[in-house]
């Protein structure tokens, strides 16, 4: 019930972020200093920022960037994690031990600190964000996939299918895959929630994307200097990120098996 509300909210935010920059008459990146810091009025629904850019358009465009980057990172980590986890779960032996070793190291290391250092050292860009977040991000998914795969592979219906001579592709597609898919999806939503926080935190610290490209974290960071005179500039993107983050967290929580 609550999970469904979260999904609806997420879809609404996502649609708004996609549609608003398309229909808005303003450019999210083009400065217009004659219109700097206008209060909200019928022309600029949320007013303009210190460079005269429409706040609503800019927040939506930044949201589109935040969500797309977070989605891209999560897709990559999920793909890497699911494949390596499935291999470790099915093959066992060396593959399994290798996964466990890298997981022990990766889980012990603080992800945000290393991502910050990597992104800070490389030049800003989409590739940098991916490089900073993927290397430690796939482990969670790999571990869950490995466990789910191993459980599924030893389940009775899989044993039965193997006994009547089902081929490996068939087993993966019809018998093991469906069992693992749910677990992978659960991890992927949790990873998406974490990634969204990480991506926007990196931009907040000024190491994410090159200007004028920006996401919600970057917008908040630009606006902190004006927090006393124009709190709107920081609060609007902060609220947008908060709503998205809460909706995502609620969906994650709903997918988690209850106590």
């Amino acid at each position, binding site marked *: 019930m609550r999970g469904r509300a979260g999904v609806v909210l997420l879809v609404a935010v996502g649609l708004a972020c996609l549609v608003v920059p398309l229909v808005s008459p303003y450019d999210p990146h083009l400065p217009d200093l004659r219109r700097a810091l206008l209060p909200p009025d019928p022309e600029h629904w949320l007013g303009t920022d210190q460079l005269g850019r429409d706040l609503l358009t800019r927040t939506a465009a930044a949201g589109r960037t935040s969500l797309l980057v977070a989605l891209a990172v999560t897709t990559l980590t999920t793909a890497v994690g699911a494949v390596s986890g499935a291999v470790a779960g099915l093959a066992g032996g060396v593959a399994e031990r290798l996964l466990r070793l890298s997981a*022990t190291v990766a889980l*012990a290391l*603080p992800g945000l*600190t290393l991502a910050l250092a990597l992104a800070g050292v490389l030049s800003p860009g989409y590739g940098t964000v991916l490089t900073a977040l993927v290397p430690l991000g796939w482990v969670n998914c790999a571990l869950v996939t490995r466990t789910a795969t191993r459980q599924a592979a030893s389940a009775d219906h899989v044993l039965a299918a193997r006994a009547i001579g089902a081929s490996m592709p068939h087993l993966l597609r019809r018998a093991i895959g469906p069992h693992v898919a749910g677990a992978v999806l659960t991890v992927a939503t949790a990873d998406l929630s974490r990634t969204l926080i990480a991506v926007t*935190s990196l931009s907040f610290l000024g190491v994410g994307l090159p200007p004028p490209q920006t996401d919600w974290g970057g917008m908040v960071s630009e606006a902190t200097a004006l927090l006393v005179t124009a709190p709107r500039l920081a609060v609007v993107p902060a609220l947008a990120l908060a709503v998205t*983050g809460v909706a995502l967290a609620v969906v994650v929580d709903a997918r988690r098996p209850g106590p």
Partner: protein
Amino acid sequence: MTTVLLRRGAELLFALLALSLLVFLLTALAPGDPAEELLRRGGVQPSPESVAALRAELGLDRPLFARYLGWLGDVLRGDLGRSYADRSPVAAEIARRLPATLHLAGVAALVAAGLAVLVSLATALRPRSRLARAVALAAVAVSGVPPYVVGILLISLVAVALRALPTGGADGPGAVVLPAVTLGLAGAATLLRLLRADLGHAVRTPFVRLATAKGLRRRRVVVVHALRVAAPNAVTAAGVMLAELVTGAVVVETLFSWPGVGQLAVTAIRQRDLPVVQAYVLVTATAAVLALALAELCVAACDPRARRR
């Protein structure tokens, strides 16, 4: 116990080695040559000869692995190199900034632990009550929002609208309140998420039910019986939370201009001052790794079941 210690020790050593290698490799990943970067700080384009001379002086012409060993030796002796920006020793600067970060993280840990213990005690016996559900939802909500967003909302409410507390800096005793609450809320959400299921399970174990059935007061049942079952996991959760506070401090320090190591690191990143960035990552990540390892050790020491894993 000894085998557990040995195995965990080996794992810890391995993680720390991997960390040191990663931190060292940051220099190799960074675009540009450190010697040229250093000389260019003077404002003029250096000649190839002076670059080559400095490369030899810094040992940059040696093979990568030899440099790593040399660097690791320096680090183990407490020498974290010199800043590109002003040639001052990095270790001294980190040591000067560390108390502020520890102050912030310490107060935040108190806030987080206080909140989490209060809430879980208040809601443990009635996990389906309205209060418990509201608190659980709040913890889920906070866990989905980055700390600086919570901080921005707190600043604009408390500092800007009510003018109750300063918006940033570290002057006066009130300055720590907002940053610590911001960081502590994130910590409390982590703790609650990790503890919620545990206390729920503990309350449903037969002997806790017996305690309720024989008429003990509710507070006594939770504090004396149920809490003890959940305690080992709480220690693990505390380790996870401490690691999160130390590494998450950078964001809160940047938002509140709190003069800690995180702020130092962000400034260093903007100036491309690599040795400072390396030192920050090394110190913070080591602290986080040790916090997790210590928590695990505590659990192994007091819970015999954990040793068998």
